[in-house]
């Protein structure tokens, strides 16, 4: 075990990850779960963590890199505290998703894809979140869904999360 490994995979982290990994047939298979769990713990996946994961799963760092960059739910940089993922796919677009993005622009002063200067808020457009019945909708902090959005609701969401 390298020093880097021990730094990332602390006892506390291993206590969460080992039981999950044990459920899988091969060492590599739980890669996505391991990355999810590390991200939940540390906030994002750094290059250092990728190396440690490679050591833990007995694969090359490139194998981990490929996975981290292929999927959209992994963050390679520290996250903003409040993240609005606004759906931009067809049903949401039909029902005004572009206007929702403009509301964020107006109330936060940032365009889609950007972060407020204090690093607190981020607005990003994402593809269909499987909640088209709520269109236009967004996901807050990669967790809860909010739907039937309009300007008042956007303002309220910003206010509540200030």
């Amino acid at each position, binding site marked *: 075990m390298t020093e880097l490994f021990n730094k990332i995979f602390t006892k506390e982290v291993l206590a969460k990850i080992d039981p999950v990994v044990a459920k899988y047939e091969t060492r590599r298979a739980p*890669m996505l779960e391991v990355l999810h769990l590390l991200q939940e713990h540390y906030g994002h996946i750094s290059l250092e963590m990728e190396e440690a994961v490679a050591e833990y799963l007995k694969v090359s760092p490139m194998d981990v890199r490929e996975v981290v960059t292929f999927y959209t739910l992994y963050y390679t940089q520290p996250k903003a505290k409040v993240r609005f993922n606004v759906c931009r796919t067809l049903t949401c677009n039909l029902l005004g998703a572009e206007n929702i993005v403009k509301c964020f622009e107006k109330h936060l002063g940032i365009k889609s894809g950007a972060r407020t200067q204090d690093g607190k808020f981020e607005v990003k457009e994402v593809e269909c979140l499987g909640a088209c019945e709520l269109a236009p909708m967004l996901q807050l902090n990669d967790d809860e869904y909010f739907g039937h959005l309009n300007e008042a609701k956007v303002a309220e969401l910003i206010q509540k999360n200030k």
Partner: protein
Amino acid sequence: MEKLISKYFVEGKTFSLAEYEQDGGYQAIRKALEMKREDIIETVKKSNLRGLGGAGFPTGMKWSFIPQNTGKPVYLVINGDEGEPGTFKDKYILRHAPHLFLEGVMIASVANNVHKAYVYIRGEYVKPIQILKKAIEEATAKGYLGDKIFGKDYKLEIVVHRGAGAYICGEETGLLESLEGKKGQPRLKPPFPAVVGLFGCPTVINNVETVSYLSFILNRGPEWFAGLGSEKNGGMRLISLSGHVRNPGVYELPLGFSLRKLIYEVGGGIPDDKKLKAVVPGGLSAAILSPEEIDVGLDFDQLRNLKTMAGSGGVIVFDETTDLVKALTVTMRFYAHESCGQCSPCREGTGWIYRILKRILEGKGRLEDLNNMADICAYMGGTTICALADGAAMPLRSYPQKFRKEFEDYIQNKEKQLQTV
């Protein structure tokens, strides 16, 4: 109309194990454990249950392809990636009826001699994943999962695996790659997953909704189930209805239900009584239908006859004000974003089409663009490892085919207000 799965869709409620049992739950699996494997498969064949993830493949027939004599374990993999835009039904099942789903997983496992099942759910479904994990704990504590399920000499373990945001992982072999800890790039077939699937072993892949109908079929008989639907399309399915309708939501309807009735009766019609312009009948990857084509039954065969598909059951309604050039641009942007990058016709084609459409939208279109798009489209169908490109080609072909004038007007700058995305 009778409700099967959707009777559990009570706002704000998740049916616990005890509540599900009170309602007659976990009887069908007890029955299945007494049956011969082959008889379960025969029953499912007779029910005409079709795969409800998108392809509509007959479930019983799929199971009968699994070789049981390879000396390798057989895996069951449940597809809960629910990535097809316009589709949101599996989320309701997981949220409200996790035990109905689990009983389905158990029945499919017993039928295929599976002792380990993986459930792959898109990572964005945070709450549904928590609910399912809790339900698995409940079932394990009760002895319904584990070394001797229901006191029988049958071992079954279910592992929940979270996706991480990639549409392509809904494609069954992309999903398998992802489950093996890799990028979700689909595999060349053959060999099919039934023979060489997860970890190189025979693998059954079914959608969340598909297996959720199994307990009904075992409890009430395959003839009853088959009789609910249309020819060769058994039972009911959950339609996800969205777009310009008064009552968007999930509706459980018999296979073959009229698309017109879905929009105007079940869905309450179009807001402000606007006229219908077009409708997507089976998820974003289905060809659109014009208003003259909506007197069709929603099943796999009738929609195929109209050169579109029933797909995932995601119906998106467009009212008369919809800008179809923009709708197609948004659609193609999705495929350009989600192409896994493995095959050139898809990787290059989807991006190219998106750039052309964006240009048209911005008022810089040329008339030859339409022919160019048709040409690129022709190279995208049937030339790639998986069906993502075919899925992109379906809308791409149908919009300009059915509404060519609208595209021409745009190009000739007759549209006054030009747009961008």
